[in-house]
């Protein structure tokens, strides 16, 4: 490993990325795409003579959309680069070298998108009355660029789950336009519109200032859009998940429910069903202009939709395990080919780690053990935090820890194999054993291979 190995204590790497990514997805999909599409639609209705209140509603919604999108959405978007650059430099560095041009073009799309949004916002008061059709054009310009940006990023995101042979397949288009590309893009767009409609539904219930009739019309339009978008989301979610290899997808329940809750197999399907039902009810309440019901259902529907977004992203990230880039790199950033060389020739890993944290442990063996843990296991496990390795190994004997580290990739399908020499594996096992059994009585010590 050429770069410093950083792992976030307590929270863990995965949760750190997830917190930032879920917030970003909620805003980029729900606010920047979903809400803004509806705002443009409302402004169109005003511009085409369906009532001034459509324009006033759109204007009232636009400022918070712009502030949230540019303050939180954009920063968390760049934040993904910051976090992955720290936590997985080998992984993100590899991707950037290969996918430079799609990312570079996406950057311009992203910039154009922001410019359109700023023009739409700052020129609204000047154009809404005098030149509404020009404002319409700016609005649709924004939508077109936002969608093209989503197309570009979907290919980059999606290739990581390319079912077979990436990157050994050899071509860029195979990796980029893989079978999950179209359904993932469509799924994200429809889900974003559904989420945006839900947010506007809540706003209409709680904050709308016009007459009851006008509110009813906004409710009906929003509820209709939300129902249609939900149907699209469901269809493309089904297509998307049907295209992910069973090797990966079979772990979806564990990835979301984790150890304890995955033992109740119907829990997730029931929860997902309840969440979808709650969202559908909120949409129907809007469609039927039931203000009270929409207001009551809004908050639970919002919380559940956040849960659904988090669940989707979690499954998407988890099910490709044990790979960061299938066929090329393991989740711990160890390249498969390096691991094969290490396995074949008992090559040590420590000698290739340019940066070992000198301040963590003072004893050389402990420092080596910690460095090997960081390099091999630290991307998923912490010591003392989420997915604590000391809890996982507590009560196990030293030789059993050593046996387990030898068969990780077989024992648990999404665990990476140990990378390093046999001697290093024993060093790491000893370190983990001592960390896991700090407060217990002495255990049997390793006595070599037991015949």
């Amino acid at each position, binding site marked *: 490993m050429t770069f410093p190995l950083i792992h976030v204590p307590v929270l863990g790497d995965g949760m750190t990325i997830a917190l930032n990514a879920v917030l970003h997805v909620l805003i980029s999909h729900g606010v920047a795409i979903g809400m803004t599409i509806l705002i443009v639609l409302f402004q169109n209705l005003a511009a085409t003579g369906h009532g001034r209140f459509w324009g006033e509603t759109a204007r009232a919604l636009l400022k918070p959309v712009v502030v949230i999108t540019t303050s939180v959405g954009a920063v968390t978007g760049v934040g993904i680069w910051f976090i992955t650059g720290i936590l997985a430099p080998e992984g993100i560095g590899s991707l950037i070298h290969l996918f430079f041009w799609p990312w570079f073009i996406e950057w311009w799309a992203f910039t154009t998108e922001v410019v359109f949004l*700023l023009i739409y916002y700052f020129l609204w008061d000047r154009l809404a009355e005098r030149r509404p059709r020009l404002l319409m054009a700016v609005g649709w310009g924004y939508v077109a660029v936002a969608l093209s940006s989503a197309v570009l990023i979907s290919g980059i995101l999606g290739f990581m789950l390319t079912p077979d042979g990436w990157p050994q397949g050899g071509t860029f288009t195979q990796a980029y336009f893989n079978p999950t590309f179209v359904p993932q893009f469509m799924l994200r767009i429809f889900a974003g519109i559904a989420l945006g409609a839900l947010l506007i539904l809540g706003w209409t219930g709680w904050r709308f200032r016009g007459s009851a009739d006008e509110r009813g019309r906004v409710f009906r339009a929003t509820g209709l859009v939300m129902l249609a978008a939900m149907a699209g989301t469901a269809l493309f979610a089904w297509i998307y998940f049907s295209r992910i290899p069973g*090797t990966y997808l*079979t772990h979806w329940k564990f990835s979301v429910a984790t150890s304890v809750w995955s033992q109740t197999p119907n829990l997730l399907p029931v929860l997902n069903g309840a969440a979808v039902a709650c969202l559908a009810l909120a949409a129907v309440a809007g469609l039927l202009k039931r203000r009270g019901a929409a207001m009551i259902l809004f908050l639970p529907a919002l919380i559940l939709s956040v849960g659904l977004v988090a669940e989707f992203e979690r499954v998407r990230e988890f099910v490709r395990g*044990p790979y960061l880039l299938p066929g090329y790199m393991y989740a711990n950033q160890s390249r498969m080919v390096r691991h094969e060389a290490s396995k074949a020739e008992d090559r040590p890993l420590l000698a290739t780690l340019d940066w070992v944290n*000198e301040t963590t442990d003072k004893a050389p063996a402990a420092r080596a053990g910690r460095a090997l843990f960081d390099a091999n296991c630290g991307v998923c496990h912490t010591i003392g935090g989420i997915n604590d390795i000391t809890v996982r190994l507590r009560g196990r004997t030293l030789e059993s820890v050593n046996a387990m580290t030898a068969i990780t990739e077989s024992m648990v399908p*999404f665990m990476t194999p140990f990378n390093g020499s046999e001697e290093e594996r024993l060093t790491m096992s000893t370190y983990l054993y001592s960390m896991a059994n700090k407060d217990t009585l002495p255990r049997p010590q390793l006595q070599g291979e037991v015949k």
Partner: protein
Amino acid sequence: MEPWKDLFLALPLPEIWLRILLFVTFGLHLLFVLLMLGTAMLGFVFFLRDCCAADRTDMGWNQRMVKSHLGLKSLAVVLGVGPLLIIQVIYSLGFFTATGLYAFTWLAVIPLLILAFLAIELFEHKMLSRPWLPFLSGAIGLGALLTVPAIFTGALSLMERPGEWTAFAAKALSPTSVYLPHWILRYLHVLGAAVVFGAAFHLFFTAGQAPDKRARLHAWLFGGILFQVAVGAPLLFTVADVFNWPVLTSVTLGTIAAMAMAWTLRPATAQTPAPARTGRALLVLLPLVFVSMLAARQSLQDATLMTLHKEARAELTRESADLDRFRESALKTFRLKLATVYDNGTTIYEKSCQPCHGVGGLGDGPAAKRLLIRPEDLAAVRADRDYVRSMILTGVPGSGMPYFTVFDKDKIDSLLDRMDKSFSLFGPTTVPRREVGEPARDIWKNTCATCHGLTGRPSEFGLTLQPAPPDLGRFSLEPERSLQIITDGYPGTVMQPYRALPESVRLDLVSIAANLRR
């Protein structure tokens, strides 16, 4: 088509073009960063000044000024992605190492920026209301905002100093005496530039023709330029070791332009400003200063990092050639994994259990050789389904048996079905037909029950053992295996050998144990 080998070696453009692209994109980003910072700084200072004054008529102008922050910051953030992309390609080694060593400070940029942006929005929104809220939000927003360039300049300064990396890593965030002055001066230089560009921007865009506002901005612009010269001179000394002709040329040109700008804005003319002439001078000189300073900065950066980067690429190429012979086996490993679906008991047993318990469940798998406590002979087990499920889910503390909650309930059920089919795991216990003698009953009561309990449920003492004895009311073994354990003990556990007992007594004990299963 030749498969990709090492993705770090895939360059999208020749390096020279990447450097030019970086210059342009970083320039765009930096320009909006400076405008954003300058707007926030000047907006807050003017707000404080007008708050203290009795006349608050200028507050509306302050608000207009801060309103532009929304657009400026949006463009600053979005334009930052381009140079970030290119830096990660052409300065991979330096960038990932420096930000890695900065790790959590680097990550702090995300919450700091969100806090700063939202607080400044509130500052602008509430500026005309009661002063305490805009003061508080403005102070928080500006404080957070000004912390971010400190982090950026710190990380970039470290990136350009590979010689400092080891010492920095050892001391975490305690920079050395050489690095610290450079960082501080560089940070101050950014703040000074922000004042200069912010003041110039508002001179053109928000001040209009109002003489008092123009005079105020003129003063800040003039002061900012002098500050830049004062900070810039010692800053040059901190980079003296990598000075070269392109840097010297750029710095000289930039300094001359800055001095010319200061001359144009000198207080004597500022009192009677000639807006058109000053404006034209600024439009020519400011871009010149900006481009010169940017060119100097990138020349300094390239001087160190491009050399480093070439070395890293050469090393990577060597390694890639060395690893070529292992690519086929890596591909084979991946294909094997891709074809293995852990959704059925057969695969789960084969992959997760067989390494220790063996193909025939005899406890003789290849990994068993490493274990002090031998894995149980599954073919000899006759137990309750739920009991075996709990052992799989919780493992057996004190032994090598890990827990397998990584598989959901349906998969565990499938595994249990598979094991039952192969080993009759949940079949009835085979109870030997023999009369149990009194000596064996006494031994069970006085010795075995100490751990196993009279009814087969482990005693309180037994439960303190690692591993604890199984619950013989729910878990039994075939007589041969049971006799073997009683005779030879269970190595690695406290179950000792009782081979000194007569065989008839041991057989009686086997019978007692078999009869305990409920």
